[in-house]
């Protein structure tokens, strides 16, 4: 009797052995149960940058769409997004809440350069994947300094390098002037210009404005007075529209380069006056929802269908909703690639192992690539010129030389 029982025990034990490694995993599977994967996020739903809040809502809607389509290996994504009012101390509080109270598996698309700077050290100490941040700062590509943090969009430095090369090719002897916003956004561009212009950097005329200034008229007048014939405008939409108008009104005709941040047809070109902007050169990596060129594009049709079904309150002219959908598309791909292993290690591994991934909202031909030594998922841009009605893309996709 006794022997038989011990035999049974032995049989039972051997039967359990194969299952054991799957259960006793060394990997960290915090935030993952049999039915859900918890993913955390912070967004400015209130405060000075609350216009960006819609990005978080588009993210949430895109996760809902994926859940409705069946989820991931039997699990649904539980997307927890908190308001940080674009205030770094609040971001720290909310991210600690996400990691310590809600025990999320990963952070995704946290918005804002200062907000992410405040949490990056803590998140890396905790070894929580910090994926596809909503900021264009170049430092998120630094895989040595913070291996758990990875950006998404092309960095401002990359973009500026592309412009600088174009300037040198078009007007090798031009007098270059740069109007920039005096914050991290503007300064990243200066870094990119300096990288390429090298010895000529000292001759560049700089003019800056504060985001709280009323106009940039005086800066433009002084740039024109300095005899500038190559002008780069690194300004947010309101100031970009002012600049286009003022440059036209001053009857000044420089080679005008405009940051890709401010190319929205609805928010910049229309208010400035489409005819006043003819000839301006900029660059893009994503499709503009207000550009009629994409009316019959499959990716944007899918996006419009998504907006109608999952985020009907959202503004279909707001580029933030396009970006939220696009970035979440990448995250969904990472989760698919994870298979049945949603440990933090594997999530990071898959996020840094994307090969020629396509995206419905990126310009045709642009693909995402990451590796353990490449934390800049999107490195390609395409130059484009305003023809008075729409942006005409020209030339090949250009890859930035960013490290």
């Amino acid at each position, binding site marked *: 009797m006794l022997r038989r029982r011990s035999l049974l025990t032995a049989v039972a034990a051997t039967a359990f052995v194969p299952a054991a490694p799957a259960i006793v995993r060394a990997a960290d599977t915090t935030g993952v149960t049999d039915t859900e994967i918890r993913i955390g996020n912070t967004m400015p739903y209130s405060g000075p940058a609350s216009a960006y809040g819609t990005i978080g809502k588009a993210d949430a809607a895109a996760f809902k769409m994926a859940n409705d389509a069946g989820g991931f290996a039997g699990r649904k994504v539980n997307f927890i997004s908190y308001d940080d009012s674009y205030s*770094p101390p609040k971001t720290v509080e909310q991210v600690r809440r996400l990691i310590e109270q809600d025990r999320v598996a990963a952070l995704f698309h946290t918005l804002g350069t200062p907000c992410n700077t*405040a949490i990056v050290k803590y998140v890396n100490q905790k070894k929580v994947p910090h994926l596809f941040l909503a900021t264009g700062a170049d430092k998120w590509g630094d895989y040595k300094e913070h291996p758990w943090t990875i950006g998404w969009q092309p960095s401002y430095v990359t973009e500026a390098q592309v412009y600088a090369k174009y300037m040198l090719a078009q007007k090798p002897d031009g007098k270059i002037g740069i109007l920039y916003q005096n914050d991290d956004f503007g300064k990243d561009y200066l870094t990119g210009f300096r990288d390429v212009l090298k010895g000529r950097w000292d001759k560049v005329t700089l003019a800056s404005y504060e985001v709280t200034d009323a106009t940039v008229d005086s800066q433009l007048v002084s740039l024109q007075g300095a005899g500038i014939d190559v002008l780069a405008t690194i300004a947010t939409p309101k100031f970009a529209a002012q600049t286009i108008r003022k440059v036209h009104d001053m009857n000044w005709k420089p080679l005008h380069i405009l940051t890709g941040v401010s190319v929205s047809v609805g928010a910049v070109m229309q208010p400035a006056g489409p005819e006043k902007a003819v000839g301006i050169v900029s660059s893009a990596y994503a499709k503009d929802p207000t550009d009629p060129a994409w009316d019959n594009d499959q990716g944007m049709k899918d996006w419009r269908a998504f907006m109608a079904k999952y985020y009907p309150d959202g503004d279909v002219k707001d580029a933030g909703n396009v970006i939220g959908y696009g970035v979440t598309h990448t995250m969904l791909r990472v989760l698919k690639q994870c298979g049945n292993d949603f440990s933090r290690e594997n999530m990071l591994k898959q996020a840094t192992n994307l090969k020629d991934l396509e995206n419905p909202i990126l310009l045709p031909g642009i693909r995402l690539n990451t590796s353990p030594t490449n934390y800049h998922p999107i490195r390609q841009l395409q130059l484009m010129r305003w023809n008075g009605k729409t942006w005409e893309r020209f030339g090949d996709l250009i890859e930035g030389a960013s490290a």
Partner: protein
Amino acid sequence: MSGEITAEATEASTSIRTQPSTRARPVPFAVTVIVLAGAVALTFLVSNYHLFQLTMLVGYAVAILGLNIATGYNGQISLGHGAFYAVGAYTAAILMSNFDVPYWATLPIAAIISAIIGFLIGFPALRFTGLYLALTTFALAVAVPQLLKFKGIEDWTGGVQGIVISKPEAPFGLPLNPDQWLYLFSLGVAGLLFLFAWNLIRGRIGRAMMAIRDHALAAEAMGIDLALLKTRTFAVSAMYTGVAGALSAIAVEFVAPDSFTVFVSIFLFVGLVVGGVASITGAIFGAAFIVFIPNIAEQVSKAAPGAIYGVILIAFMYLMPSGVAGLLRRLYHRLVPSSR
């Protein structure tokens, strides 16, 4: 004859002097001890995340107490105390990152620098009263984020990128994690500052401050040096808020211009009014409002957290016109009739 009159007068003034001092005692000693013991016990009862929130709460409480000294007790309305909060925070961060000063040593330095700046700001403040002073200080709060980006000091302030610092470990091998230690440390600092404020308010200087608030001309006629007292009050007030800023910077481990927008000043003012103007304990309730109400508002509605926050704020003001502390004081007097 004349000697008798003097003696009588002295006696009278003594009785006047002692009367407010007993009345100014808002909370019985036993309650203070219980609250403090409870606050210390929390170190070992709640999670690290909640300890971080409580550390922020302690910081805000000290900042509001500072604001209360100028606004509540001295009648100088300030909408710019976020500036002193920023000065304290940056002082701590710069000293820790550029000069390797230990975190505890940054507090007295932050106190001195904030006090000096507060004193200097206090001078123009002499010429303005009431709403005009509020606007002047508001201008200061608006200017701060840009001043912090100023090129000339970028090597120290880190410009728009700010400064990342490290959270201190518990000293002497105490079995505490950094969150627990920092909470206890902040609590200790706050305890000292509250005691000091309580002593200041119930003493001769505190009465002079309140006299200026209630009737400046009468106060001057009684021999109070208005200019001296008002500027010094502003300096003490700025010092408190500066120390609070330093504590918060150490807790958050990061300072940047975006951390010190004009909203910091507004929230401190909200905390002051919600907690209770001219109340020392009110500062704690005001700080709790600043820390917890935005989270509650967000839980109610993600679409419009600002609107919910506004509704809660209006409800508070409607139900407790003299702040949380005022409500508690009334309840206490009702329950313990002898305390009147």
